[in-house]
């Protein structure tokens, strides 16, 4: 399966987590990892499976390196009904209500563009004792299964004559 991993990071932790997912589940798939600062919304036109891994900046904002991408898509929303996505949202519970809001903003925006969410976003707390990478790899296994199921269903629907 082809999937785009859109990494939105301030300190590199989201990138590390994305790489861990590629290491754990990448065999046999084509996962392309892109930093948001090096990408533009047009990339989503050709993307069918998207995984956003985003941290949070300040009090609930999208990290600065991903701001241009995010704002461009908000200002000129694309029709993303062809796209299925998942979100891993990193944050710090010390920030209370705005915890992991960066990733949650991506979730809302993608939904508004008509993209289809495959699973509830995974919220990761940097202040917690949990192994964030471990949780992300575990969650991504479920996300991958759902994505493959969805692709399979689509293929069956588009080629009904196939036995």
């Amino acid at each position, binding site marked *: 399966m082809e999937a785009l991993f859109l990494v939105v990071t*301030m*300190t*590199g*932790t989201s990138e*590390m987590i994305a790489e861990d997912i590629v290491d754990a589940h990448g065999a046999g798939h084509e996962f392309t990892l892109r930093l948001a600062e090096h990408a533009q919304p047009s990339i989503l036109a050709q993307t069918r499976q998207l995984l956003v891994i985003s941290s949070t*900046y*300040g*009090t609930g904002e999208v*990290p*600065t*390196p991903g701001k241009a991408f995010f704002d461009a898509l908000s200002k000129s929303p694309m029709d993303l009904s062809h796209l299925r996505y998942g979100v891993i949202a990193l944050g*710090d*519970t*010390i*920030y209370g209500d705005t915890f992991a809001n960066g990733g949650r903003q991506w979730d809302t925006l993608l939904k508004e563009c008509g993209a289809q969410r495959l699973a509830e976003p995974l919220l990761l*707390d*940097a*202040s917690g004792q949990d192994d*964030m*990478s471990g949780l992300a790899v575990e969650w991504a296994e479920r996300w991958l299964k759902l994505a493959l199921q969805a692709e399979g269903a689509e293929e069956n629907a588009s080629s009904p004559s196939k036995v």
Partner: protein
Amino acid sequence: MAIAIVGSGPAGFYTADLLSRSLPREPIHLFERAALPYGLVRYGVAPDHSGTKAVARLFERVMKRANMSFLGNVEVGRDICIDSLEEAYDLVVVASGAGVGKQYECPGIDQAPSITGLELSVWFNGGPLPGTRELPARLDSICIIGNGNVALDAARLLAKPASALLAAGVPESVINWREELGLEEIHICGRGSAAQTRFSVIELEELDELPRFCPVVDASDVEGATGHNTEALHVLQRYSRQAADSRAAIRFHFEQEIQRYQSGELQSMQQGRRRTIPARLIVHAIGQRAAPIHGLPFDHDKGCIPNQSGLVEGRARTYVVGWAAQPGGGQIALSRSRAQSLAPRLLEEFERTAGRGPRRDPERLLASLKRDVVSWQDVLQADPWHIR
């Protein structure tokens, strides 16, 4: 062919990350003055902000790459000179940070018991207290000079319950010192208005969650205050409306021009009026600068190592990155973006000069070092951050 990086804080590790990805076969030696890695992340970030410290896991990952080596407890400029590094390495990158707290200067202040906010943070994070600092065993008031997050971190660490500090890993000896003080008030004193601070909302709001202390702001200080930091001003305005309770005060003082220190008090002027602020201990939290490295030029005014787009002035193959190149900014993420900006130039330079001319074998240089160098293996076995 090999690369030396001096300093294992964010700037050093982000640079190591980028270089070790692009040059997976070239040895990269990471020198660190302290015995343990991570610099600012370990010692500058407050111990109770564990989420900010979580980036250390990324750095730990970088050290797993085959071409990375760690050499702790080695101070470049003292244990090993810059010239020797340049002889043995194709590229030297200084990422020594801004590890020196600036001290406020006014008549009499050298008579005051004092500590920098950075030193306080290092100490609460389990690092050493400089031998030159003698802290009082008992005092009723502390005055923190500075209006940034280092000042707020200091106030919070001085005010937070012992149990919370213990949970955050603050050494028991430090907690005991704090508990025995008999501290009744904490003052935070700055030159600018209540709207000109560098406070973050989150750090400011943490001061309102303390069981034994509460933030106190004068209404006259926040009314009509103008400046860029309106978010922090709104929090301060809220504090000014809160009724005093039985908790001890963390009292804010704005627009203070401190004139002198005399017998446990700071004398200052606020818009032409005399003010006296109790200060049995002064915490300097007015910024940081780099520490000079013997053998490299130093700009004392700017507090950094002078450089042209990263290349250290007067040097052929020594670069500087992060706070040592340009102090301030105060964010770990900024070190990452600065390392990203410099990396292409470093790679270009490495391609250009690698293997040219007679070079001393780095291994022979390292063999000539003192014996108590801390290896990564040692770190993994001894560092509480890695024993999980």
